[in-house]
């Protein structure tokens, strides 16, 4: 049986692991139980700063601490990080202060809370900020490893995690995970599916279905959207000649855009973008949302065939 886990739990575990570094501080905006920073708060109450329900303040408190030699990890729901976008832009990214912002409950997969809680634009907006590294890992192991690597980065970052459980892919494969390096999960020469977050396991399912039809797909976990792993994209574009991206995010501005921006100036291949079709979400169970938003394995496989037909 595949182990199931939520990426937000990997984030919570990573903060605990980082706690032995006395410069690491955690900032909360009344969602520590949800983003999983609560474990750190329990272990290191003196280094946990409650900012109440005040995301804008939280981001700049974090910036001030980063400028004073601390390594701040701030978290809230992905949707409410957006409340502090301009603080992130002017107070964090512009002076290049190493504040690490985590947005949990990202995407429509979040489910029954409905559209107000389903961030479908976070990856896009943070990707537009110079200096900011943007990540969206797919399982709890990679979330933990990538979070632990953040302090060495010395730059600001945004990481989206998800609320609900998805299959764990990297048990025992911790060494393969590096910020900025996509990971090939399956190899095939007909089409390459590049995915992030909860859609990585959906892409593996799609690849399996395609295999049954004699179509051999490569599947890449592109956990880092910025800087995007251009070398890997060039390699699989040349190898497969057709690309698909898959993300629980608006088709505008996210992983699909990042890949498109790269291939127009490099190794070109037809690209199909699977994502939320520029609409808001609604209440529904996580698996129902994948269908309603047309981002499930079924739609990824369809897109793969379309990309191949455009070769």
């Amino acid at each position, binding site marked *: 049986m595949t182990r199931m886990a939520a990426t937000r739990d990997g984030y919570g575990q990573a903060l605990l692991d980082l706690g032995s570094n006395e410069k690491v501080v955690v900032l909360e905006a009344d*969602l520590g139980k949800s983003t999983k920073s609560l474990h750190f708060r329990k272990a290191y109450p003196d280094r946990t700063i*409650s900012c*109440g329900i*005040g995301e804008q303040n939280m981001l700049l408190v974090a910036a001030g601490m980063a400028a004073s030699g601390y390594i701040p990890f701030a978290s809230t729901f992905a949707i409410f990080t957006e409340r502090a976008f301009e603080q992130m832009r002017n107070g964090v990214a512009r002076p290049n202060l190493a504040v690490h912002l985590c947005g949990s409950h990202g995407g429509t997969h979040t489910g*029954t809370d409905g559209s*107000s*809680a389903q961030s479908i634009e976070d990856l896009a907006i943070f990707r537009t900020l110079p200096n900011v590294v943007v990540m969206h890992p797919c399982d709890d192991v990679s979330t933990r490893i990538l979070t632990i690597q953040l302090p060495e980065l010395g730059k600001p970052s945004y990481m989206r995690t998800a609320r609900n459980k998805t299959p764990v892919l990297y048990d025992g494969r911790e060494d393969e995970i590096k910020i900025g390096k996509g990971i090939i999960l399956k190899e095939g020469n007909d089409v390459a599916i590049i995915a992030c977050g909860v859609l990585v396991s959906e892409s593996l399912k799609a690849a399996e279905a395609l295999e049954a039809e004699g179509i051999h797909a490569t599947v890449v976990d592109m956990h880092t959207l910025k800087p995007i792993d251009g070398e890997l994209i060039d390699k699989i574009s040349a190898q497969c000649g057709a690309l698909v991206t898959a993300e629980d995010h608006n088709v505008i501005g996210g992983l699909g855009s990042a890949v498109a921006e790269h291939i127009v100036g490099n190794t070109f291949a037809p690209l199909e973008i699977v994502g939320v079709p520029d609409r808001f979400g609604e*209440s529904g169970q996580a698996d*129902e949302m994948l269908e309603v938003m047309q981002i499930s394995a079924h739609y990824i496989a369809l897109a793969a065939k379309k990309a191949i037909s455009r070769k």
Partner: protein
Amino acid sequence: MSKSISELEEIARKCRVEIVKMVYRSQAGHPGGSLSEIDLLAALYATRLRVRPDEPKWGDRDRFILSKGHASPGMYSILAEMGFISHEDLKSYRVLGGVCQGHVDMKWCPGVDFSAGSLGMGLSFGMGCATAARLDKSDRRAFVMIGDGEMQEGSVWEAAMAAAHHELGNLKVILDRNRIQNDDFCEVQMRMFDIPAKWKAFGWNVKEIDGHNMTEIMEGLDFLEAPENSNGPSILIAHTIKGAGISYMENNPSFHGAAPNDEQFHQAMIELGEVEA
């Protein structure tokens, strides 16, 4: 629109039953803040709001904005009681395609005037409604319910300052002062010190009541409708109990956003007088 105290109490009891049923059925949602606000909502809807359930978009209706939009079961239950939606609709809470979305949403549910869910937005929106009413020379009013945790959002104070500056006497706020937010008690998360003094200092009419005592609630609504300074916005600070009416939910931060299990649901129905012990 006149109702006796005991009639209002019965409306609120029926709403409590629906609130618990909604979160139990969906095994998700926010019972705590729905149960703390419901006596206030019952009195407001049943005796004050100038609205037409059969014509929810009537232009000159009073607006009601549930800024703490997660406490939607409370609002849905009173909307059903008033006839904006049916009791059957309540089963669609958090269900795909349902009018009762997880957070109140004006695009989905008749009688909802603001798509909430992000805290700290409703007061500014209410100010917009109140400003438009004034430009229209209409005597319609904007009522906004906010949470105490929500008050930590800076935007609440931007709106508070602006509404007093613009002398919006038609803007009326009810604060559900239940002393608990998401992770813990407000006192632990972010102390707010003297709340009435803060609003007074921002230029508002202020009154405090017990938000579960129907007689005091009616006095509080009288105050909101006719405050001392009729040119100023008004706030009713209602001291409430999060989870009020269900013993194990009362003053319990874990029932901010958690559903009862089978046994707890049964106990709630006993406590609300729906089934015999």
